[in-house]
């Protein structure tokens, strides 16, 4: 009994200490963002504000470019949620319910792209977007202009098909009995009506996983905006805008002291929405990640 209690105590000591180490950078950023610059320079391993300074948060939240980054990101996230959702719901249906020649071959072809690392796409997609004929000053041969580069086209056109979600939807369709569809057919519904009215409500768990993972992916996407649209500040997303803002703050020594609290306030504020999303929809995050493993 004693040994067991000792074991439990050690277990909790291990868990609490390692978990605190994991949380340390984020807790530090949270506290440092609320610390006055003087206090910050006095602190050692953890910022200890003598009074809470909300001015760094307020200053950042009041910036016009922050509103721009957030609006850009939410717009782009909406697009990368809706279009892949439509595509994967349609493909999931086509690859599960109707039987036709070549169905499984096409499904395997689409799954194959899951194995291609993202970096392989960056350069060829850049060239394609830059050389797209008749846009951005390009002639019919794709010469002379910048194509879609540094425009919204570059941030909205590539990467709309994600084979993982097609796979996920197909799994979900397979767990739904066909009786519902047959009943709807008898009532005279067509295929699109059946997908929308019969299947989509039953696909909600899978769709929720798609929405949150796509939203987090777009919110944090850095490489694509950097490469495809890094030259256009007006369409910069949160991750790129915030990173650049933190960098320029770290280089700004004109005021004498580098304004570290502002850097941490920015990092906290762009991380907070995702953390809140996780806390609200924890179940789906866990299901989504577990789904990658158990079904993959």
């Amino acid at each position, binding site marked *: 009994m004693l040994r067991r209690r000792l074991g439990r105590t050690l277990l909790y000591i291990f868990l609490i200490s390692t978990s605190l180490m994991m*949380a340390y950078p984020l807790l530090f950023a949270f506290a440092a963002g609320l610390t006055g610059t003087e206090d910050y320079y006095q602190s050692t391993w953890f910022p200890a504000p003598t009074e809470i300074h909300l001015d760094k948060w307020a200053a950042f939240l009041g910036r016009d470019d922050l509103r721009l980054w957030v609006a850009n990101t939410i717009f782009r996230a909406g697009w990368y949620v809706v279009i892949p959702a439509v595509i994967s719901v349609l493909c999931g249906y086509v690859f599960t319910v109707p039987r036709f020649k070549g169905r499984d071959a096409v499904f395997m072809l689409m799954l194959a792209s899951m194995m291609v*690392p993202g*970096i392989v*796409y960056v350069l060829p*997609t850049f060239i394609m977007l830059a050389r797209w004929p008749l846009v951005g000053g390009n002639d019919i041969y794709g010469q002379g202009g910048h194509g879609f580069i540094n425009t919204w086209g570059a941030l909205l056109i590539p990467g*709309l*098909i994600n084979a993982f979600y097609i796979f996920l939807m197909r799994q979900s369709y397979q767990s739904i009995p066909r009786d519902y569809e047959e009943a709807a057919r008898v009532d005279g519904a067509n295929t699109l009506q059946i997908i929308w009215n019969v299947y989509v409500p039953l696909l909600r768990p899978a769709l929720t996983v798609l929405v949150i993972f796509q939203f987090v992916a777009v919110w944090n996407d850095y490489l694509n905006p950097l490469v495809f649209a890094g030259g256009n500040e007006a369409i910069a997303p949160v991750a790129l805008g915030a990173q650049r803002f*933190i960098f320029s703050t770290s280089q700004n020594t004109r005021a004498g002291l580098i304004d570290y609290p502002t850097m941490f306030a920015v990092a906290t504020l762009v991380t907070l929405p995702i953390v809140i999303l996780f806390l609200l929809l924890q179940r789906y995050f866990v299901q989504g990640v577990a789904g990658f*493993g158990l079904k993959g």
Partner: protein
Amino acid sequence: MDTYPLTRRERIAQYLARNRRAVEAWLILTPILIYYFVFAVFPVLANLSVSFLDWNGFNEPAWAGLANYERFFTNPRYQQVLLMTVFFAVAILIVNTVLGFFIALALNEQVKGLGIYRTLWYVPTLTSAAVMAQIATVFIAPRVGVTSVVLASLGLESPIWQTNIDFARLIIVVFSVWRSVGTAMLLFLAGLQSIPLDVIDAARVDGAAGWRMLRHITLPLLRPMTVFVLVTGLIAAFQVFEPVYLITNGKSGTNVMMLKIYDDAFQNGRFGMAAAMATVMLVVLLWASFLNLRLMGQTSAEQQ
């Protein structure tokens, strides 16, 4: 004459009526497949073609044959990049897997407040790699950074990554582990929770506990998940970009293929080299994926 040969239009109508489901399916699939070929299949082939070219994006592309690949495998600077990519991938993979496994094991012991620990371990994977990497530069800054302050309070001199290669590499590994170990933890936890309780109980009745339970019951049952964690972890660890780009910018012996591809493509105008490196990554990671499928197939065959 009541019967007459069907007109072309009638034959088509008849065919459509008989194969309505298939026709609908292809109507849905065709636009999606066109997009898929343009943006998912064609770029892979285009990347392969560019890898055989000497091209900076502006000049007339010249055929280079295998020269880019030869350069990648023989030039000492590229060899160093390949070596560091493998080093980081293996180091991050090992730490992630071992640490993630033990945390999952601890969390599976019916601990109170499971959700809180799980949140603390998983939330870092949801943060922006770019923003947190930029913040990491503050943590490791000489004199004012936290690492310096903590080491100074222990009476130790603080390392400077620009001159200390080991420290620079350690930062990249620690940062990457911090941002990805949560996924391994969550996957192992899901695997552990899917082990049927009666299996555990039966083993306990037979006298298995502690290490013996782990060795003979838990680990074998967890094998498919372990394979999955290892392979997906390897694929992710090969593609670490933001910390290398933003913390060290590849300096101090930390350059990796992801950053070299970015630099060669968009800074140095060496499209051919960048495409060749991307092709090498494609081959390595495809091999890893096939290995995954084979090992997964094996384990499920064993269990049947």
